[in-house]
């Protein structure tokens, strides 16, 4: 168009501009579309495809190397051969098929004929019966009726014959074609892995794709077309039941995390970098087989974060520490999301989420969620719950001792020093430090006295005066009750032995102060989880009076009804001996205090004390009004005379106790029902960050403070740090005490507290089965009462590589290098060091459970080359066993630096007062057992193991035993304490062991059976009709041990006549041989069965050489004693006794009880002619379970 000259612009120039801008606009449009299309998650998905392709190729390679291709060719050849074989018999097959066709025709004819006869017969019968009814003659037309019935039967006979003929021909055809079918089936089975790999490769491998296929993929994923059916897709789970709160509405969770985390639900990607890594616990999470499948639970219910985000930053990932935060910021431009209330939990805090659904079963999940469970235990042990309410917390008792009677125990000086800083006296105490912390620091002004008119009062004197006031107040609430004198004089030497042997040192240690481990090998001087259950006893003689100590160890509950310390049923003499040992302290333990520590009262002139406490009173009593306070202080008030320093101390002390909440942990007269003072923690984890007071303090601990986790870590490590740089009046200052938590403890507690969230997941919450509840409550009771200090409840394991390179884990104990029958408690490092020292190339283990994988039965030795060892896990419990055994072998190891250096600095003292060596036996005689084998001492004198206890004892007996302890093994000095259990706790423990054994039982029985038969897992599984995976899982006590699965195995076991113990049913008391029916039946067959049992037991085996008989002591010394057989019928499960009689060492390897009925040929024929070993066991069992009928009722 020509320029008409009537415009102010040049059209050609404008055209150019149009051109340029439209090109630019188009380009930006293209750029926009591409940018929108090219999401980061697509990049991750392509990356994952490459990783997977590599893995599948590797797998193909491995299969090829293993000869899979040849195997396939072989199998194909077999199919071809079978087909050829069939072709060669084609005429035969054709003839057979023709025959079958004809037979089918004949059969059809016969079936039709039969149908007609049936109709005819029914019609005839109807007519005839009608006629008979009218005539009243039941024999009318009988011949006709019989003839009709015969015709029908004949037709049926013909049909049956033809059916049989047809079946025969059919099987002939099948036999001809079977070869081909079988060959095809084995081809499919033998190439299953190969087929899977090839199928996957066809989808992944570009080399395997044709051009059109590749093009199709490009088109499917093209921008604008990818809504139809793209190859790269967003993966999401929609969770209707699990909601979260968004702006006051409940919203379903939609988790798209797996769009990027494609490897999360698949095993085999453990070593790949994020986001492709496999979930670390696929047995528990994500997969459909796990208890938390992703399609029911999603991801954000545990991890938190924004599930709908498809971008690393918007999903609100959170780093575990500062280094990771810096690395993310560099590589991924990571920064915090500020508008999202549910930031993802850093991976080291993820376990926090377990709490929201598992509140009712925190103990049950302890093995799978170790960090949060540890936090839960610490909250219980340190008593956090008593100041900070957690409404569902199962423990309610006050964690600190009662103070209602403390003057019977402690001096004023001790109370004051202890309150000022308990850790100065006992660094390991759970009591925290309340005074002289940073917001009351020395030199820092707390307040200007007299309403700002007086002098500044600094933190040091403020807290000193507070300590004096609290001491005075507590004493005022605990009247002096004189303790009775000791009824007998004690002997320190005897007391030392008693203290070692009755079990005090199961819960208490006597470790020296400081971090360095004790140079002594004495287990009582080393700190372990179990022996820190009670306080460290070092220095205790400087704390208490002998009269109090005597009364306390005689009956702890009398002083403090809620104490965990059980009653050991000590005699006056025993208690006096222990008291003498502790108070006289010959071993320099109980009067050893931290250098520089001394129990002393607060030293402050009375005028200063009055001034400081007066100022505290002004703050604490401010509600009463200035006039009243000043009148009291100046002595102008008739009733309240605060001019008297004593009265002022008590008054201020009471307020301070209220302010610091001492009554939450300790019982104090007059304050028993007061409400706890701390912030409620029931749903602290849901508190939004803006509700936390961060203060201007520095954050020196752990994480970025803008996390709940970071805030809490700081609070736990430096509880008063949020007061820094703030001006607060004394009643507003932070009061949380200092616990001296380690990083590990602080992190565990933080994890637990962060997990205390609002209940949003009611629908997904775990509802424990009755069995799970029983186990949970039992585990808690076992933990709270420290049962594992004395009793081993699970054996330890060793993991090693066998000759084929396969990794094996076996329940076993390490045996000592010097004396191979002695088990030793070793860590892997210590074991390797010892092996070097002894120049041992292999380590000996004793197998403790049936292990079919390696063909070992309990008691077998296992020798593992040192370099093949992978891991050792210690047994669960039984620390006291070693301590008791040590006493029998070497007495007490006394560290005496005056003797020399190193190993020379120790002397050993025993119960024997002369030069000899010995231990006082229960009969009062001192004997030297140090020459006895370790197994003998362990099984005879130490606390019993409780592995599989539920299979051994009757549940109701166990319950009553826990309620009211009856000594069973009269030879032991160590004593099962009386715990004062309530019914609930005793039931929980009894049920726990019963359920534990019930769970172990399918595993044990299956393993034992397979071991006995020498079958591989695959063969055994095939025999039983379950999959190999299922069988293996059952053998390991896994989730596949369902009743249905186990019934299949049990049925097969019964069919093969394998003698397996019946399942442990916790509600079922097991004894058939006592029943009247059984006895009547037996009497009918063998009148003398009970006397045979008696003859075998008494004259053959001579059980009473070792076993007590109705309280009657056997002839041997105590080391040869065994329990009273009169307990058997009430105490033990009959099926267990049967196994025990057959081979005791299979149950407790090393026990003193011999195998009595294992002779080949069977022995004792003179007492029971022509009997087998099983016959003998049967009659002895009957004798044992009818002991009362034999001996008591007569």
């Amino acid at each position, binding site marked *: 168009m020509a320029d008409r000259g009537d415009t102010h612009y040049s059209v050609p120039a404008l055209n150019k501009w149009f051109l340029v801008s439209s090109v630019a606009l188009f380009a930006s449009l293209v750029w926009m579309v591409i940018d929108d299309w090219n999401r980061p998650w697509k990049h991750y998905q392509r990356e994952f495809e490459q990783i997977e392709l590599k893995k599948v190729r590797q797998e193909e390679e491995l299969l090829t190397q293993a000869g899979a291709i040849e195997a396939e060719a072989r199998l194909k050849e077999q199919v071809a051969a079978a087909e050829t074989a069939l072709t060669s018999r084609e005429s035969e097959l054709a003839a057979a098929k023709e025959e079958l066709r004809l037979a089918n025709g004949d059969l059809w004819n016969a079936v039709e004929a039969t149908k007609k006869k049936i109709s005819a017969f029914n019609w005839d019968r109807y007519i005839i019966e009608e006629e008979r009814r009218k005539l009243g003659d039941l024999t009318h037309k009988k011949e006709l009726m019989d003839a009709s019935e015969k015709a029908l039967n004949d037709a049926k006979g013909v049909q049956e014959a033809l059916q049989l003929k047809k079946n025969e021909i059919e099987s002939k055809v099948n036999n001809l074609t079977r070869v081909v079918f079988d060959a095809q089936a084995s081809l499919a089975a033998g190439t299953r892995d190969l087929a899977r790999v090839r199928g996957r490769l066809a989808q992944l491998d570009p080399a395997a794709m044709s051009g059109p296929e590749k093009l199709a993929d490009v088109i499917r994923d093209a921008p604008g077309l990818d809504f139809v059916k793209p190859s790269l897709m967003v993966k999401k789970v929609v969770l209707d039941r699990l909601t979260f709160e968004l702006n006051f509405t409940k919203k379903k969770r939609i988790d798209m995390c797996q769009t990027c985390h494609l490897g999360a639900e698949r095993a085999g990607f453990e070593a790949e970098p994020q986001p492709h890594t496999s979930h670390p616990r696929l047995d528990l999470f994500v997969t459909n087989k796990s208890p938390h499948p992703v399609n029911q639970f999603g991801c954000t219910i545990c991890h938190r974060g924004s599930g709908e985000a498809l971008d690393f930053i918007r999903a609100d990932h959170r780093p575990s520490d500062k280094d990771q935060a810096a690395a993310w910021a560099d590589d991924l431009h990571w920064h915090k999301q500020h508008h999202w209330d549910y930031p993802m939990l850093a991976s080291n805090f993820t376990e926090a989420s377990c709490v929201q659904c598992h509140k009712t079963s925190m103990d049950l999940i302890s093995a799978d969620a170790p960090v949060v469970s540890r936090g839960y235990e610490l909250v219980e042990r340190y008593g956090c719950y008593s100041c900070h309410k957690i409404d569902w917390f199962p423990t309610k008792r006050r964690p600190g001792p009662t103070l209602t009677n403390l003057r019977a125990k402690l001096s004023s000086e001790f109370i004051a020093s202890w309150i000022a800083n308990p850790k100065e006296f006992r660094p390991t105490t759970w009591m925290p430090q309340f005074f002289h912390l940073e917001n009351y620091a020395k030199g820092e002004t707390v307040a200007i006295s007299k309403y700002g008119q007086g002098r500044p009062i600094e933190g040091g004197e403020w807290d000193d005066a507070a300590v004096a006031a609290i001491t005075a107040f507590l004493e005022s609430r605990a009247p002096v009750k004189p303790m009775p004198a000791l009824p007998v004089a004690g002997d320190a030497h005897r007391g030392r032995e008693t203290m070692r042997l009755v079990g005090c040192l199961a819960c208490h240690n006597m470790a020296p102060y400081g971090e360095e481990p004790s140079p002594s090998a004495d287990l009582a001087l080393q700190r372990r989880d179990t022996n820190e259950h009670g306080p460290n006893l070092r220095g205790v003689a400087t704390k208490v009076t002998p009269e109090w100590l005597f009364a306390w160890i005689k009956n702890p509950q009398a002083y403090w009804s809620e104490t965990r310390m059980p009653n050991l049923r000590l005699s006056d003499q025993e208690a006096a001996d222990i008291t003498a040992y502790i108070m006289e302290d010959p071993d320099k333990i109980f009067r050893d205090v931290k250098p520089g520590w001394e129990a002393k009262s607060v030293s402050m002139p009375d005028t200063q004390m009055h001034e400081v406490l007066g100022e505290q009173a002004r703050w604490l009593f401010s509600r009463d009004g200035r006039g009243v306070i000043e009148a009291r202080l100046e002595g102008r008030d008739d009733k309240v005379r605060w001019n008297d320093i004593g009265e002022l101390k008590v008054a201020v002390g009471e307020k301070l106790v209220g302010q610091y909440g001492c009554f939450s942990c300790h019982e104090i007269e007059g304050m028993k029902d007061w409400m706890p003072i701390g912030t409620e923690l029931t749903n602290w984890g849901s508190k939004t960050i803006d509700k936390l007071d961060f203060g201007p303090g520095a954050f020196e601990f752990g994480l970025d403070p803008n996390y709940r986790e970071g805030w809490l870590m700081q609070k736990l490590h430096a509880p008063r740090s949020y007061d820094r740089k703030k001006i607060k009046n004394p009643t507003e200052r932070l009061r949380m005490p200092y616990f001296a938590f380690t990083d590990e403890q602080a992190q565990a507690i933080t994890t637990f507290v962060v997990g205390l969230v609002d209940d949003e997941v009611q629908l997904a919450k775990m509802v424990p089965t009755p069995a799970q509840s029983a186990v949970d409550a039992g585990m808690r009771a076992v933990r709270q009462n420290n049962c594992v200090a004395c009793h081993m409840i699970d054996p330890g394991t060793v993991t090693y590589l066998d000759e084929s390179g396969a990794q094996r884990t076996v329940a076993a104990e390490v*045996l*000592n290098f*010097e*004396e*191979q*029958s*002695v088990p030793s408690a070793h860590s892997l490092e210590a074991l390797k060091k010892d092996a070097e020292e002894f120049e041992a190339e292999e380590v*000996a283990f004793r197998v403790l459970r049936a292990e079919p994988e390696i063909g070992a039965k309990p*008691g*077998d*030795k296992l*020798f593992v080359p040192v370099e093949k060892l992978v891991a050792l896990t210690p047994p669960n419990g039984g620390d006291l066993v070693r301590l008791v*055994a040590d006493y029998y*072998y*070497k007495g007490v190891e006394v560290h005496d630096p005056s003797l020399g250096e190193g190993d020379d600095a120790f002397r*050993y003292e025993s119960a024997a007062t002369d030069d000899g060596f010995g231990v006082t036996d229960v009969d009062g005689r001192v*004997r030297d057992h*140090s*020459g*006895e*084998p*370790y*197994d*003998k001492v362990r099984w005879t004198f130490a606390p019993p193991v409780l592995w599989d206890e539920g299979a051994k004892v009757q549940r109701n007996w166990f319950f009553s035993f826990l309620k009211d302890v009856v000594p069973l093994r009269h030879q032991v000095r160590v004593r099962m304490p009386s715990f004062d259990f309530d019914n609930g706790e005793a039931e929980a423990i009894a049920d726990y062991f019963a359920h534990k054994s019930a769970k172990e039982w399918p595993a044990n029985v299956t393993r034992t059976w397979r071991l006995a038969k020498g079958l591989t897992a695959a063969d055994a599984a095939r025999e039983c009709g379950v999959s190999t995976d299922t069988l293996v899982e059952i053998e390991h006590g896994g989730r596949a041990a369902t009743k249905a699965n186990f019934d299949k195995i049990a049925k097969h076991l019964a069919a093969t006549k394998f003698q397996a113990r019946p399942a442990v049913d916790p509600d079922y008391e097991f004894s058939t041989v006592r029943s009247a029916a059984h006895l009547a039946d037996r009497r009918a067959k063998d009148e003398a069965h009970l006397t045979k049992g008696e003859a075998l037991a008494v004259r*053959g*085996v*001579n059980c009473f*050489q*070792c076993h007590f008989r109705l309280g009657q002591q056997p*002839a*041997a*010394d105590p*080391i*040869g004693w065994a329990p009273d057989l009169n307990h058997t019928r009430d105490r033990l499960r009959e099926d267990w006794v049967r196994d025990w009689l057959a081979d*005791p*060492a299979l149950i407790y*390897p*090393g*026990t*003193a*009880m*011999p*195998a*009595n009925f*294992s*002779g080949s040929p069977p*022995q*004792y024929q003179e007492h029971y002619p022509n009997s087998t070993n099983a016959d003998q066991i049967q009659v002895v069992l009957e004798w044992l379970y009818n002991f009362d009928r034999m001996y008591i009722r007569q």
Partner: protein
Amino acid sequence: MKNVTLFAVVATTGLAVAFTTPSKPITGAGTGKIVLDGAKPEVKPLAIDAAKFPDCGTVDTTNETVQVDDKGGIANAVVIVEVAGVEVKAAEKPVQLDQKNCRFTPHIAVVTKGTTVEYLNSDKTSHNVHTFPGKNDAINKTVPAGGKESQKLDKEDRIEIKCDIHPWMASHLIVADSNFYAVTGADGSFKIEGLPKGEHKVKVWHEVFGKADGKITVAEDGSSAAVEIKMSAEKKKRK
């Protein structure tokens, strides 16, 4: 008495070895004595209340753990000579360990690898045999009066044997990886026949005094000098 029985066993086995050696190279007898280095520890006789165990007969209360004569000779020490290149032969007949008058007889026995051991009971009362081995399988079986149990011992080992019914009963069974061994007599002396020429390592073990080492040399003509091996009187370290 016991030592005589034991010598009979040892001598028989030794002879059997000597006879079955195919080509007859020059061999000699190693002799020597095991003596205590230090003061003889005091041992008390076993405290057994015989009246409580009428079926045991007269129980010998000799404490066999430490028997040292006036010249320091240690009885019941086990001497094993390590000779390379000689095939270790198991005894052809089972070696017997008896329980008689509620004591094990012998108190210390040595057998070669692969030998079958029979545990007998010559008493009127039942005993049990409870073994505490290092490498071989542990057994714990009742042996009724007049009964018998047997076990083949395949691995070199030191096995403590107890009867739990009569706690004082104890014995040690050494399974040697050598044909050349002896248990010392009352004066601590030993004699081992059929040693090939050359210098051999000697290992000594005693249940209380622990271990000691020595050497024995058999000359070209088969003669050898008597050796004296000392054992420290210090008690072995407790477990």
